[in-house]
């Protein structure tokens, strides 16, 4: 079975933040990489995960989370680039730690590879044209 990767944002209601939930994803044969987490007991918690597994298992895992009362959002784009604002200067590529944002060395246009994005958000503040919106902004 082919393995896919999915970046998901999870919102934990305050009463759920003290229970072990994410760890149970391993029961669905999923591996997860925590990209970002803002969790403290008694408050709404947020975690961004990269899930890896088969499509069917990812679905099972996400169903489990929803049954536990977790709000799940799936991101198909981890940063949103406003094409009309982007001037292809390349400033964002200088701070991108994973090589998700790179310059095409023929056309010198900016290219974005979602699979490599770690959601660090450095590009958002580094963009002089303010043409990048972090997907953090869309959930937090």
């Amino acid at each position, binding site marked *: 079975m082919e393995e896919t990767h999915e970046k998901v944002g999870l919102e934990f209601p305050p009463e759920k933040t003290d229970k072990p939930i994410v760890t149970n994803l391993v029961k669905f044969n999923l591996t997860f990489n925590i990209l970002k987490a803002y969790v403290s007991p008694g408050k709404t918690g947020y975690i961004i995960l990269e899930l890896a597994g088969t499509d069917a298992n990812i679905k099972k895992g996400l169903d489990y989370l929803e049954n536990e009362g977790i709000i799940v959002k799936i991101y198909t784009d981890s940063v949103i680039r406003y094409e009309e604002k982007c*001037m*292809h*200067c*390349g*400033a964002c*590529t*200088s*701070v991108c730690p994973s090589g998700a944002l790179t*310059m095409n*060395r023929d*056309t*010198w*246009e900016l290219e974005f590879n979602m699979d490599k994005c770690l959601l660090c958000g*450095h590009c958002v*503040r*580094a963009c*002089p*044209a*303010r043409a990048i919106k972090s997907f953090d902004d869309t959930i937090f």
Partner: protein
Amino acid sequence: MSKTIQEINEKIKKGKAVVFTAEEAVAMAKEQGIPACAKKIDVVTAATFGAMCSSGAMLNFGHSDPPIRMSEITLNGVQAYGGLAAVDTYIGATQPGEEKGAEYGGAHVIEDLVAGKEIELCARSGGTDCYTAKEIRTKIKLSDLNQAYMFNPRNAYQNYSAATNTSNTTKKTYMGTLLPNMGNITYSTAGELSPLLKDPKLRTIGIGTKILLCGGEGFVVFEGTQAINNAAELENGDMHYAGYTLCVIGDLKGMKSAYLKAATFEGYGSSLYVGIGMPLPVIDEDFMADLAVSNAHLYTNIFDYSESKRQRKALKRVSYAELRSGLVEINGKTIRTAPLSSLYKARLIADELKEKILGGAFVMTEAVSKLPVRDSLKGLVTEGK
């Protein structure tokens, strides 16, 4: 072989001029050599699109009724200069907004003006016998203004230092965010497409040279501030050019939003990305040789921007080909490089100017006066520590 600008202009008017962008000219020179290029090509178009902090706009609002002698002026909450005649002002690109700071500064006002957006104008005055109004608040847009022209004291830097950071903390600079321990190198140039790197001896660019400024007609009006052109000859015979600059002017009303862009440099301030295109007439073979110099033979120095000194020590001299490759080595460490100016946009400008010349819509001007040679820069002596 030599050609005059008048001869070339005659060819342009007849639709017979041969025009190449500087990048195309570099490629052709590699294939066919300088003499063949000098013979064939009439005009080479050079261009740049980068952050140019010393930019701004002169505006005349016209008089209100009753009239006011504006002394404190804001445009969308960004202060403009109140020390000119009653309703004249200058708004500078790096002026931070009173509310939004660098997120909306002078550059953003200029960008919004060119985009045709409404801008809130507030002005105050102590009132005089002839200008009795003490306060006005109104909305203006570009078409409402009598004159609105960009007047940029320092643009089109010939050559600019690349930046890195040897300290162990992140530095937020006008050269972008510099990661600790030489985590990145940033540079700003159009390289072999850049106007002043193609005419380093200022043989054709002079006072009065007509250019494309932010997509509209503009002119070189003077040397730019901090202009310096003391080039150094390297051991291999290549030249390492200094940093000549140009003062340029152009009507805001003829500009295109695609060729200017307000910018925010985190922790530094606002700035304006300015697009400049320049036609360079191929007057002789010597000049063609300058026009044909490629990125592999154009150099800059990498400086440590964590060092807060006027005279920083260069870490390394690199060619623009090395910087463009994406990786540069310093002291055994391989460091990623990133551009800050947009070569993509610069190419669009060079292409657009080429098309205008081919279509007869842009003819060249003779310089009315030579630009001065500057072989040194003065520093500023301050009192005490």
